[in-house]
């Protein structure tokens, strides 16, 4: 063990609290990679990752929300089994789903920035439905806006084919997740401040 003779530089209380929440949210989005709610009509597995990307921005704000997503990607990169299907590895960040993964911190930041309008967090349950809807839709657009062209580029397929493979089957269910994210924060059961 290396020895260190400098004095301890303590982390501030509010940073510790936000950091712990970001780390646990990253662990929670990782845990949802294993849970899929089976739906009889669709062959596409229904996972909750997009829900928690939205909640990260809404509940933790732009800064810590994107920190949570970066922690999630870093955990996956060093091989902790956090990506869908219960796998890890830095290869996923460069693979066909890499675009979606890279878009998560950006989407969490944009959702957080549109809802909180700054670094100080607001009470999300008091935010109006139209603001929530617009920011969540902007987040979802970003996820597909980065994920689908990446998919097309990496697999060398056309954009239309990438949409049919990597967006069309998922979007209806993602809209359910956006509605759920709005309902969860409006319920007032999750405190942000």
């Amino acid at each position, binding site marked *: *063990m*290396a020895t*260190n003779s*400098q004095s*301890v*530089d*303590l*982390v501030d*209380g509010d940073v510790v*609290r936000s950091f*712990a*929440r*970001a*780390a*646990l*949210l*990253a*662990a*929670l989005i*990782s*845990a*949802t990679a294993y*849970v899929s*709610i089976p739906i009889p009509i669709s062959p596409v597995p*229904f996972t*909750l990752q997009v*829900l928690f990307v939205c*909640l990260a921005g809404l*509940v933790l704000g732009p800064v810590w929300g994107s920190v949570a997503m*970066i922690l999630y990607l*870093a955990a996956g990169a*060093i*091989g*902790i089994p*956090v990506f*869908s*299907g*219960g796998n*890890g*590895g*830095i*290869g*996923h960040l*460069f*693979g*066909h*789903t890499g675009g979606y993964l890279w878009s998560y911190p950006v989407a969490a930041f944009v959702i957080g920035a549109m809802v909180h309008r700054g670094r100080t967090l607001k009470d999300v349950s008091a935010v109006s439905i139209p603001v929530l809807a617009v920011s969540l839709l902007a987040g979802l657009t970003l996820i597909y806006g980065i994920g689908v062209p990446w998919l097309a580029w*990496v*697999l*060398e*397929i056309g954009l239309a*084919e990438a949409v049919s*493979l990597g967006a069309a089957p998922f979007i209806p269910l993602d809209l*359910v*997740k956006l509605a*759920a994210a709005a*309902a969860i924060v409006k*319920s007032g*059961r*999750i405190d942000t401040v």
Partner: protein
Amino acid sequence: MLTYEPDDTLAHRLDPRSKLAVQIGFAASALAHTTPHALVVLTGLALGLLWSARVPLRQALYAYRYALPLLALAPLISAITLGAPWFDPRAAIAPALASYRVLLIILVSAAYIRSTPVRDSRAAIQRTVPGKPGQLLGMGVALVFRFLPLLRQDLETIRDASDARLGTERSLLERVVHIGTVSLERAFIRADRLSLALQARCFAWNPTLPPLALTRRDAPAFALAGVLVVTVLL
């Protein structure tokens, strides 16, 4: 599932930083080249990397089986055309080669996962990423690793409790709202307890890190990573 296994292979003796560099180099090279010739070379290299950590190919393929259907679908969808000739196999060639390189990029990670414990990866992050962001990133991934099993259990409990109360009869939206709310509430209760515990134990920006040392053995690995990155320009 792939996970760290103690062993004494070549990959186990390398520093995590050099292994990460090789993977990034491999991904960069594979993303730049999809000619059959390049893919033969990359396949040989990927098999060599898996061998260096003694990961059986079958095990690696099995672990990443969820990625396979989509990678197989991409060339198929490209071959299907609206109108005559309906199915054009020539259109499937480029996507098939591209899908194959993605498979190689993902497979190579298996060698790193089997040969690197999380605490070493964490130390590598904290030594490589400078300043406070590096400390938070390293601590954060360690916490994700620690809490992942607990939160998985929480999710299972929530689902079981919901199923026992006929939760399966509710609409999809209601189920998602329920599982999302309860799991987030529980995660944040855990987070607030954790932050108190961290402060009680002097959570600091300058912790003592686990030992990690680059040795002469890492030089060839860095050289390989460098060569792979240079091939992007070819």
